């Protein structure tokens, strides 16, 4: 029996090595681990781009993020996507996105959904705050003042810096709970709204997409979830201190490392909360008698770095496994799931594979291909995964989007990372160096380097062949309308 409905759950910042079904030892995903026993589990799922704004075109439209031109971010108007195709095929469609402005109507994500709720009217925009607005906050201004002052004070400045920072934390406004600190709706709120919608449309076939933000910085998990993973109790002011400290730009890795474990505990608590809400989602779908006719997909838009290579959060340039490898679990009723091949599976191929599982044709506009047959026959595939982004960290500014490309070609064993802006080329052997600590010297593995460079060349060449003029004009018009509605021209 083919499933009639599809539920896609994407989680922001969830790295593959922090879920139990891919080997994490802390009990963060007991429900998902049990679900994995009856699901296809993809051990090496690789995103199409990092971060959020470069990842979702691959997940939802099976398209590389820069394929339409890097000045266009998000889905372009009238683009054929998983939701548009399913809607056209008679599905009711809804999306509930936990206040991530890069997955909002402005970037084209509202199109093709009968119901689209991005919670941005009610909540602070988390990811925009995280990148572009944080430089304007009071704390950031304070931190920059401290940084300047401590430089002038020399060695004494470091001590002054620390003491003053701690004083500011303690003297800040008191907070009652971790929940009050979270700048986006938590998974329970998203699941509540989603279930309400499912109840209103079933038994019609539906496509439901939830995007959960809980593991996104700042990390403020539900206290219940922290208890569930056996974490030490964390007061709201301590959690605020940890997050503020972790966000400081003036500290080197060594200083930050002292609180790394405590920060990761908060991150893990947030994952457990997602797991608890996934259990509630599935329970309710069972109660509504739709679980047996619904496929469920659980994945992430990218991972998160915790200083493994000196960086924090999820900048678009490192392309390390912490960022590009994400969990992927696909449960299809009536099909005996299993772990699929260890070959890298690109998110680009997810939508075609899901359509195949739903017994629907794959639109010719999709750049990916279905691996549904390979999954069922327990076979592998031979193509590497491509991850692409630019060094842009503020796509709200159209001129910032014209930043240099970062390109990663990852096969089963080797990984080539090209940063065009600084001319950096790194080749890693993931078998001998799974942590990517030492790029291979330039004169080693030249045939491998050549093969991956050729692949990179074909990838960029392919993007130039796509005739996106119609989409481009419509996308530019959409943005122009926003500009014209907001402000007068500069001159």
């Amino acid at each position: 029996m083919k499933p009639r409905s599809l539920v896609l759950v994407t989680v922001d910042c969830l790295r593959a090595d922090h879920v139990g079904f891919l080997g994490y030892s802390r009990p963060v995903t007991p429900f998902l681990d049990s679900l994995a026993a009856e699901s296809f589990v993809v051990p090496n799922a690789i995103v199409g781009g990092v971060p959020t704004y470069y990842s979702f075109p691959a997940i939802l439209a099976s398209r590389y993020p820069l394929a339409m031109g890097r000045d266009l971010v998000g889905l372009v108007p009238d683009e054929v996507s998983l939701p548009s195709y399913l809607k056209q095929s008679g599905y009711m469609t809804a999306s509930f996105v936990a206040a991530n402005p890069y997955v909002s109507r402005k970037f084209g994500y509202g199109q093709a959904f009968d119901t689209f709720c991005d919670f941005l009217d009610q909540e602070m925009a988390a990811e925009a705050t995280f990148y572009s607005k944080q430089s304007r906050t009071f704390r950031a201004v304070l931190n920059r003042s401290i940084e300047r002052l401590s430089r002038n004070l020399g060695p004494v400045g470091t001590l002054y810096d620390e003491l003053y920072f701690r004083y500011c934390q303690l003297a800040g406004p008191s907070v009652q709970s971790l929940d009050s600190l979270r700048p986006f709706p938590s998974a329970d709120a998203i699941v509540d709204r989603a279930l309400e919608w499912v109840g209103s449309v079933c038994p019609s076939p539906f496509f439901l997409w939830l995007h959960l933000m809980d593991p996104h910085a700042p990390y403020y998990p539900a206290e219940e979830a922290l208890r569930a993973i056996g974490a030490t109790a964390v007061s709201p002011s301590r959690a605020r201190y940890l997050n503020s400290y972790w966000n400081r730009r003036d500290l080197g890795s060594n200083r930050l490392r002292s609180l790394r474990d405590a920060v990761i505990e908060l991150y893990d608590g947030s994952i457990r909360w997602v797991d608890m809400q996934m259990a509630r989602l599935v329970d309710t779908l069972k109660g509504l008698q739709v679980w047996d006719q619904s496929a469920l997909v659980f994945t992430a838009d990218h991972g998160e770095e915790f200083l493994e290579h000196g960086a924090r959060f999820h900048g678009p340039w490192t392309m390390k496994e912490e960022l590009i490898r994400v969990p992927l679990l696909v449960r299809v009723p009536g099909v005996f799931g299993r772990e699929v091949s260890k070959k890298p599976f690109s998110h680009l191929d997810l939508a075609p594979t899901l359509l195949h599982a739903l017994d629907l044709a794959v639109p010719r506009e999709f750049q990916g291909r279905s691996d549904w047959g390979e999954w069922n026959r327990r076979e592998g595939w031979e193509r590497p995964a491509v991850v692409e982004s630019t060094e842009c960290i503020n796509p709200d500014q159209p001129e910032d989007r014209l930043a240099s490309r970062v390109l990663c070609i990852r096969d089963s064993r080797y990984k080539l990372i090209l940063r065009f802006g600084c001319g950096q080329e790194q080749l890693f052997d993931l078998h001998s160096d799974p942590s990517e600590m030492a790029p291979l010297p330039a004169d080693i593995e030249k045939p491998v380097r050549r093969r991956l460079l050729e692949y990179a060349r074909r990838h960029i060449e392919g993007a130039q062949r796509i005739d996106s003029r119609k989409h481009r004009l419509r996308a530019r018009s959409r943005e122009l309308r926003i500009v014209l509605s907001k402000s007068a021209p500069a001159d």
Partner: protein
Amino acid sequence: MTQVRTVSLPQDLCAEAERQFGSRFDNFEALLTFVLQEITKVDASLLDQAEQQIIEQRLKDLGYL
């Protein structure tokens, strides 16, 4: 002065565009000029070509092209 070209546009469309956005511009020609500049000013494909050339040069350096 840059050479100009005279175009004919539907009156209703011009009136509606002026109603929605006209107050921000000195005249209708300024509005149209701004819109056309905005939709033509960036050619991201030039960046793709430059990056393509960097890879080709790299392959040449390795003795493969």
